[in-house]
């Protein structure tokens, strides 16, 4: 393990502990006088009714789906971009092909009306 990786591992552990340290300090300082009124769900004064897990619009799901498609393809672009300067003209052509396919996917979704918020 290189010193850099080792440092990142240590730092990740410290960063995870840090917020819990703050919670612990607060635990010793704060008052603890809970009652059933305080722990009710807050809905601007109204009593909450029915299930919390309400139905939501399918539109959100479509955006999430589109995102997954694009993001996976974006990951492949990182190594291409990092090595771009060392490669010849074929990298440019390949890049255009790849991004072309990506753009075609976006255009298709757009044309199909998936990007319209109704």
């Amino acid at each position: 393990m290189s010193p850099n990786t080792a440092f990142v591992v240590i730092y990740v552990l410290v960063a995870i502990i840090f917020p819990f340290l703050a919670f612990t300090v607060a635990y010793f300082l704060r008052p603890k006088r809970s009652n059933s009124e305080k722990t009710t769900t807050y809905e601007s004064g109204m009593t909450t009714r029915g299930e919390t897990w309400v139905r939501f619009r399918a539109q959100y799901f479509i955006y999430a789906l589109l995102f997954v498609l694009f993001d996976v393809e974006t990951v492949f672009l990182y190594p291409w971009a990092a090595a771009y300067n060392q490669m010849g003209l074929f990298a440019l052509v390949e890049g255009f092909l790849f991004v072309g396919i990506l753009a075609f996917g976006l255009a298709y979704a757009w044309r199909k009306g998936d990007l319209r918020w109704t």
Partner: protein
Amino acid sequence: MGFLDALPLTVMDWLRGLLGQGLPAWGVELVVGLIKVVLILVVAILPVIVLTWLERKVLARGQDRFGPNLAGPYGLVVAFADAIKILTKEDIIPQAADRQVFRFAPALVLIPTLLVFTVVPMGRGMIAADLNVGILFAVAIGSLAVIAIIAATWSSGNKYSLLSMFRSVAQLVSYELPMAFSVLTVVLVSGGLSTVRIVEAQVIPFALVMPIAAVTYFLASLAEANRSPFDLLLGESEIVAGHNLEYSGMRFAMFYIGEYAHIFVIGALTTTLFLGGYQGPILPGYMWFLIKTMAVVYVVLWIRCTWPRMRIDQLLDFSWKLLVPLNLANLMLVALVFKLAGTGLLGSLLSLVVNVGLLVAVGTFLVRRARSSTSRRTRALVLGEV
């Protein structure tokens, strides 16, 4: 490198020498590593203290008020008063909440933001860990924020929180893409993922070589931080501050610490990627880094008192129909320019010309379309066709 520029490194080397007399090599590395950890935590948390004061001051000035001016000189002590208040507030966990997740979620908001500081070069040689995948690390860790928001809102057991979750997840995933494309443009020109390499590659700051990518990155990271005008997961007037609605005390404060630390991260990463990082004349590197970062942070605060909140459909359209296509086109045009003209001055100049050209073309198209749709609407109104 001047004396002042190298001062932190000199101190570090002196410390290494001192420790080397009594400790084995791995012991020295460990102690130095721990010192670095503490330093980074200070760098991450100190801006939070300054920003709680600065934001109120800037917002107040924007609204023609004084802002905090009673607690200490210029109200500077107000941040500490806040800290004491928040530490002594009761921690309420609602009955409907999923207790385990509810407790852990606020910590998850802060952790990714703290981690990003690992790869930010704050001065010549002043970087905690110069990873060879630096900027990818920052982008990957940054997108963990989505999980924090999902955990916090889902576990609250509140309908408003749930609504806030749908909005913010749609927003965060939508702005991930333009952000990735603008970062890709930078990686392509600098030829590496290491943040130090990206800074060193900026003989001319990248903001002047590819303004489209710079502005996109800035706006997308505003959306990632849930800052206005993209703060519709808060929506005080409709979903009563959504994601942190059921939180109180220290757990509530975590969201705020996370937000302010994130604002500083926006400044730091924008500086690193597009404003030439620690490079600059006369002043030492870390001073330049601080000046540039605070300038970006000021713009973030300024935007909050200027731009009204966007609607969800406007927000998604802005990302998917404008920023994504524009940045895809920009990426390929920049790739073309730098392959044909080389990465030297000529390439940079051509890239700037292409960027401005693209921006003018898209801008003209949008303005024309807006005008024609307005005139159509007006005509319809006048002729009574509605």
